[in-house]
């Protein structure tokens, strides 16, 4: 129990942020029309590619002789970049089709 309390006290800021973000995330896409479901999913998919920042940090912090960390980190950065670049490009291509044609 004590551990739980100290965990809460140490991370108050983050816990607040998480809760507020949950409400914001729900609020932000509240009234999306179903034609946009797939592009929105794809866009959100690109945004969680932000995980690449973690991959960059973990790879950059690895000691030059720590080959396991460097190799795993290398793959993590490749995969994270794929997620970011692929995600945004695919979303953009989907949304291209929604462009309003001129009469």
């Amino acid at each position, binding site marked *: 129990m004590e551990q739980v309390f100290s965990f809460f006290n140490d*991370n108050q800021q983050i816990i607040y942020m998480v809760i507020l973000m949950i409400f914001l995330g729900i609020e932000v896409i509240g009234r999306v029309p179903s034609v946009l479901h797939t592009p*929105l999913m794809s866009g959100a998919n690109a945004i969680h590619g932000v995980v690449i920042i973690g991959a960059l940090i973990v790879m950059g912090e690895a000691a030059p002789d720590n080959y396991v960390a460097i190799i795993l980190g290398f793959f993590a950065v490749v*995969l994270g970049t794929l997620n970011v670049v692929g995600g945004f490009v695919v979303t953009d291509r989907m949304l291209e089709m929604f462009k309003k044609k001129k009469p």
Partner: protein
Amino acid sequence: MLSSILNIIYLIASVTFIIGLKMLSRPESARKGNLIAAGGMGLAIIGTIFLYETSDGTHLGNLPWMFGALIIGGVLGAVSSRKVKMTQMPEMVSLFNGMGGACAMLISLIEFNHIKGQEIELGHYIAIVLGLVIGSISFAGSIIAYLKLSGKQKDISFKGQHIFNLILFLIIIIGAVITYMAEPQNAPTYFYATFALALLYGIFFVLPIGGADMPVVISLLNSLTGVAAACGGFLYNNKAMLTGGILVGAAGTLLTVLMCKAMNRSLLNVIIGNWGGSAAASSTSEQGGHAKEVSLSDAAMLMSYAKKVVIVPGYGLAVAQAQHTCHELEKILTDKGVEVSYAIHPVAGRMPGHMNVLLAEADVAYEKLEEMEDANTNFKNTDVVLILGANDVVNPAAKNDPASPIYGMPILEVELAKTVIVNKRSMKPGYAGIENALFFQPKTSMLFGDAKKVLQDLCAEVKAT
């Protein structure tokens, strides 16, 4: 100094994610929103590489390798997403989602290596193990979803699969707890076992789910990856990762629920509900099945972004005296550049020519009215058919079902169009008292309510889009 700049960059990135997601949920701003979020992401990545300072004040190392990885990932991602066909988009999204999950999984593996053999702080450990488990499930599940959508993997379900999955899930939780409790030298064994089981769970979670439900599952896995990314944010006390991850986790979960609603299903029903053979059999044998509803704003959106809309008026329109409102909607759509016409069935309404009279009264231009034969040849080039209180004149049973009382009656073949929106007061059968299979077709959606009221609301919605 440098790290303060980086913190500001992360703040900007978080804001672009929020704005981007907001703009993505409206058609006119969606594309810009996507670009804004991408810009924020690029800024965060560049900032991290050059400005990040480790706890002892040094900058990130291994830069040549890092750039190599960025270039490989960037080129692969750009090329594969440019080449993929529009029809293959869902599986591509799934694949990229899996990459993100794998990225989170690898981060956790490396971080665990760093703390191996030491006393672990609880918060730190939870972030690592949660990132590992969720990342692995998302990775394995997304790959299976990708294989299934691209037709390389069939649905597999066996008896007791739910129980099996549930037990697997419980063992993963137990494994995570034991890893924390165990002596430091034993912890890695439990940790890697938990890792393997999480991968296995991801596979078995997605394997039985039917192909049509795949987009829902991908959306769910998508929000899972968001949570995994947020775990990384906790690990490095990185606010951009934390906010971005949680934002996607929450929005993705809501989106998953919305998608289920659009298909007239519940999330639980998609995950553990009936699928495959049994579902297909029951929907054909039983005359009813599911007619799905469409919301006013969706219907308005569909029509505003269509090239050609055909309105099929019926008795319901006459009863509601909605012809003026109908003309109003036609004018609004025409102003938006949509080509609108009316398909008039000779026996629509209660007397021949009922509809022509009705519409002429509302000043609808004569050229806009198409006779049945012309209409039937044009339906295949039509994006949206809006049926207003017509039923039997669009009932495919007249063509397909010799047992039907209206068999042989010529009908408006609306099912040739891309989408059909049916406005009716209720699901009650029409004048002839027979069920209409059209309402249960996948391309058909229902818009219940009085024709006049619905048209008024549609006008307002179309104006707003």
